[in-house]
C-alpha cells in the first residue's frame, strides 16, 4: 500500500473546495479520518463528498483501506469506491465488506455504497439479500432498499 499522510485542517479545508485535487489525495483523506480532531474529520468528509470520481490507479489503495481496523476509514473507503472508475474491482471490495463480520454500522454503509453502482453483480445481490434477511433492522432496511433500487 502507498504510504499515506494525515492531512492538516488547512489542507482538508482546501481540498473541500477543490474536488479534482481532493480526488488525487483520496488515500491521504482516508488516512485523515484517523485524526483525533473531529473538525478535521468533518472537513475530510466534506472533501470526500465533493469528489466526483477517483482514478483507476488509486483504487487498489482505497480497496486496501476497506481492511483498516478503523470503522470510519472503512466506511469512507466504501463511499469512495462507489465513485471509482474501475467499478468491477471497487464493487467487489464493497461487497466483501457487506459480507464480512464487521459491525452493523459498517455493513450498512457498504449497503448504501452498493446502491451507488449502476449494476450489481450476482455476488453483491446475494450479499444484500442475506443482509436484508438479517436481524439488524437498519442494515436490513438499507439492504432491501438497495435491492429495490437495482
Amino acid at each position, binding site marked *: 500500500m502507498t504510504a499515506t499522510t494525515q492531512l492538516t485542517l488547512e489542507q482538508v479545508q482546501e481540498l473541500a473546495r477543490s474536488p479534482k485535487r481532493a480526488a488525487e489525495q483520496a488515500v491521504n483523506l482516508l488516512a485523515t479520518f484517523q485524526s483525533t480532531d473531529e473538525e478535521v474529520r468533518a472537513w475530510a468528509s466534506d472533501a470526500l463528498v465533493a469528489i466526483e470520481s477517483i482514478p483507476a490507479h488509486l483504487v487498489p489503495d482505497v480497496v486496501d483501506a476497506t481492511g483498516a481496523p478503523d470503522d*470510519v476509514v472503512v*466506511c469512507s473507503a466504501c463511499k469512495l469506491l462507489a465513485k471509482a472508475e474501475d467499478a468491477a474491482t471497487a464493487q467487489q471490495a464493497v461487497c466483501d465488506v457487506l459480507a464480512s463480520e464487521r459491525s452493523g454500522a459498517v455493513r450498512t454503509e457498504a449497503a448504501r455504497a452498493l446502491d451507488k453502482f449502476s449494476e450489481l453483480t450476482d455476488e453483491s445481490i446475494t450479499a444484500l439479500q442475506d443482509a436484508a434477511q438479517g436481524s439488524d433492522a437498519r442494515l436490513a432496511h438499507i439492504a432491501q432498499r438497495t435491492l429495490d433500487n437495482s
Partner: protein
Amino acid sequence: MRSIPFYPMMVLLLIGLGGYLGCDPGSLKLPFDTSALTGGDTITSVSSLPARDGERLLLGSFNLERLGPSKLSEPTTMERIAKVIQQFDVIALQEITSKDQTTLPQLLKWVNRSGRKYDYVISERIGRAASGYYEQYAFVFDTERVNGGKEYCYVVQDDLDVLHREPFVGRFQTKGRYPFGFTLINIHTDPDEIKYELDVLADVFINVRSFEHPEDDVILLGDLNAGPGKLQRLEQIRNFVPLIHAPTNTRGTKTLDNIMIDTQSTVEFTGRSGTINLEEMFRVDLAGAEDISDHLPVWAEFSFNETPTSVSAMAGAAGRTRR
C-alpha cells in the same frame, strides 16, 4: 412524554415538551397582500433587508460551514456571522461541528455584544458514528420579539436511521399584539443520500404538521442540497412551495438552501424572500466570503401578527376566526 407513531419507520420524540403557545384572538386586522412568489431578492447590504418592526418578522436559515474551534478563533469571521444573525428574528443554523458545547454561547456573546438579547436552542449532536463526526442544529432568536426555548424543541426520532441528520423542530411565537405562532423544521440533508432523504422529509413535514395541529404554520428550512424542481416528493405536497430560487452557495452556482411554506396556511408570508450576498454585504472577495461560509443566508419575511383567513359577518361573533 407524548409520542405519536406517524410512519412505520419514524416516531416523533418530544424532549421536555412544554405547553403549546396559544394565540389570543383580538380585533380585526386585514392581512398583508401576498404578491406572486418570486423567491429572488438578493440583498447586498444590511440596509436593504426588510426592516424588523411591529409589522414584520424576518426568518432565516444559514449553513455555517463547520462552525467549530477554528472559526471561533477568527474574530473577523465571528463578527460577520454575528452581524448576519442580528438581521433576523429567528434564524436556523446548520453545521455546528464541535464537541465543545461552548460554541453557541461564544457565538451569542458576539451577537449580543451591542446590547442585543438573543438566545438560542441547540440540538443534541446528530449524525452517524460511521461518518466520523456529528453536527448540531440551532435556532437563534431575538427574545425581545419572539418567544421560544428548549422546552418547545425536539429532534425527530428515526429508528431506522434513514436520515443522516434527523431534523430539529422548534416552536416560536412573536410578541405581537396578535401573536404569530409557527413551527420550524431545521434540516441539513446528506448530499450523497438526497435521492431518499427528500422523500422521507416529505413524510416528516406531513407528520410534524399533523402532530403540531392546530398549529398549521409549519415551515421547513435549511440546507436541502437540492433546489426547486429537484425536491421530489417535498414539492409534490399540495401548496408546499420553496421560496428561494436564486443560488445559495457562495460561488453562486447552486440552490442548496431553502425555506418552504404551505401557501394556503402560512398566509403571513408577505411574498418577500431571498438571499444575502456576503461578498457585497461585507465588501470582500469570494475568498473572504468563503471564510464565513460556502453558503449564503436565506431569508423570508412574514407578518409579525397572526393573520386571519376569515371574518365573521354575524353580530356578536368573535372578532377573529382562526384557521
